[in-house]
């Protein structure tokens, strides 16, 4: 606990604030879904949440445990087939923000959710891509929310599942990717943003009570701090109240928080 909220709450609130009202958001399950729904229930009531299982405009009263929960379909403006979601809505250029998580992330915000170790003989077989490769390339912007640790923010990915800025600089544009790429990575320690020129992630703001040293030792590469790096605005009472209510409703409905995987 820092003050009267946890680092996880700080992360979720910070991530939620990134989603502007009215944005059409393609939501990954877990942390992204929590943040997107918190945004919808606070400052962004007009945000349109799209899930890869087909619901468009989902307004779940509790957090979904899986990407295809009934609650998503029941509260959606419409439910389309999975091919339609990926063809007309994502590839069609109708998604403003892709909201993703990651098992591993590198300094250029490339994502690995496939394997730890070699592909042929993995040390850990992770779930795989899901919708992320095409979300990260086709959404106009990408937000990534991930817990900060050396295991997650690594020097080199074992596998590039979904791309951020590839090898940095203008390599993403040169590869012909349609979306702009990641605009922010929100962790439980800080907010990272890509440098305007090199595209390397730099610490843009630090959560209250977190030391620079803590961020440095928990990052797998030599992390840099932006010149204007300041302190992240702390969660407001209303944001915390809505988040805690949402989690309490989820626990009551599912028996769990709906954040794993």
């Amino acid at each position, binding site marked *: 606990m820092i003050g009267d909220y946890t680092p996880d709450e700080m992360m979720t609130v910070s991530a939620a604030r990134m989603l502007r009202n009215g944005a059409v958001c393609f939501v990954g*399950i877990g942390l992204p879904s929590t943040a997107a729904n918190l945004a919808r229930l606070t400052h962004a009531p007009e945000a349109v949440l799209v899930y*890869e*299982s*087909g*619901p468009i405009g989902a307004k779940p009263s509790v957090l*979904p*445990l*899986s*990407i*295809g*929960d*009934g609650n*998503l*379909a029941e509260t959606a403006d419409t*439910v*389309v*087939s*999975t*091919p339609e*979601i*990926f*063809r007309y809505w*994502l*590839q069609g250029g109708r998604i403003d923000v892709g909201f993703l998580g990651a098992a591993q992330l590198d300094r250029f915000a*490339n994502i690995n959710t*496939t394997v730890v170790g070699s*592909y042929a*003989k*993995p*040390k*850990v*077989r992770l*779930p*795989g*891509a*899901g*919708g*992320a*490769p*095409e979300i990260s*390339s*086709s959404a106009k912007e990408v937000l990534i929310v991930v817990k900060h640790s050396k295991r997650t923010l690594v020097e080199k990915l074992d*596998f*590039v*599942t*979904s*791309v951020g800025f*590839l090898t940095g600089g203008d390599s*993403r544009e040169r*590869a*012909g*990717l*349609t979306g702009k790429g990641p605009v922010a990575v929100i962790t439980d320690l800080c907010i990272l943003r890509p440098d305007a020129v090199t595209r390397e992630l730099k610490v843009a703001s630090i959560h209250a009570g977190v030391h620079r040293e803590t961020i440095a030792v928990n990052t797998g590469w030599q992390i840099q701090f932006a010149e204007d790096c300041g302190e992240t605005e702390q969660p407001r009472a209303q944001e915390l109240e809505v988040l805690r209510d949402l989690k309490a409703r989820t626990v009551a409905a*599912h*028996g*769990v928080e*709906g954040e*794993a*995987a």
Partner: protein
Amino acid sequence: MAEWLSLREAIAANVRDGDSLAMEGFTHLIPFAAGHEIIRQKRRGLRLIRMTPDLIYDQLIGAGCAAKLTFSWGGNPGVGSLHRFRDAVEHDWPQPLEIEERSHSDMANSYVAGASNLPFAVFRGYTGSDFLRVNSRIRNITCPFTGEVLAATPAVRPDVTVIHAQKADWKGNVLLWGILGVQKEAALAAKRVIVTVEERVERLDAPPNACVLPGWTVTAVCEVPRGATPSYADGYYERDNLFYRLWDRISRDRQTFNGWIKKHILETGDFREYLRLLSESPAVCR
């Protein structure tokens, strides 16, 4: 024309050793009863296809039915890992499992290509990723009109597709609703189609734009109430989230898993008996 059969007859007649088999249902309407029957009938060497292997393929893989898996996201939704899938990939248990890994967008597009009788799917995807390095069936293709480089992947054409739906009428016309996933495309892409349904009705009473698979596109239809459990069927029952969590414990250890499969699938006559057994056992002992 669809033939009304028992699930046992439908699997016996249509699923053969070595077949490529798609059992679709995106969290919703996963055809678990059919998966159990395939385990019960001890099919071997199956080349499984499914966007999200989920518990249904974790069971088939652990029970030794599978030689290959084509998939795009292999986790236990909301819980964590699929332990039998991981054990097969990481340790070749109970046998080596060849994997062909794709993204959701790829799988969805490839089913559409299969249903459309096209040889391959084309879409914007995989740029900059490592997929092309590990899957030689993912290629690039240049648009003849704009010069844009796009991804091309072979159409998915299963020997057999199995899906679960809410209703079918006496002619075997099938109605499904809610989260539809890729079921319609998977069915139309396949050579043979088995559909299990919650109930057989006189008339579907479906509105004009409802998702209906005409009976003549279906090979066999079977009435299996609660046949998607522990997945769910919109309008009938909810997802058994507790079972998904318990599966983490059942599947983590090989012996526990083997014991569970033996008791709950191999030693039960059908899905009805399985459901009875499940309802009689306290949650902790499942």
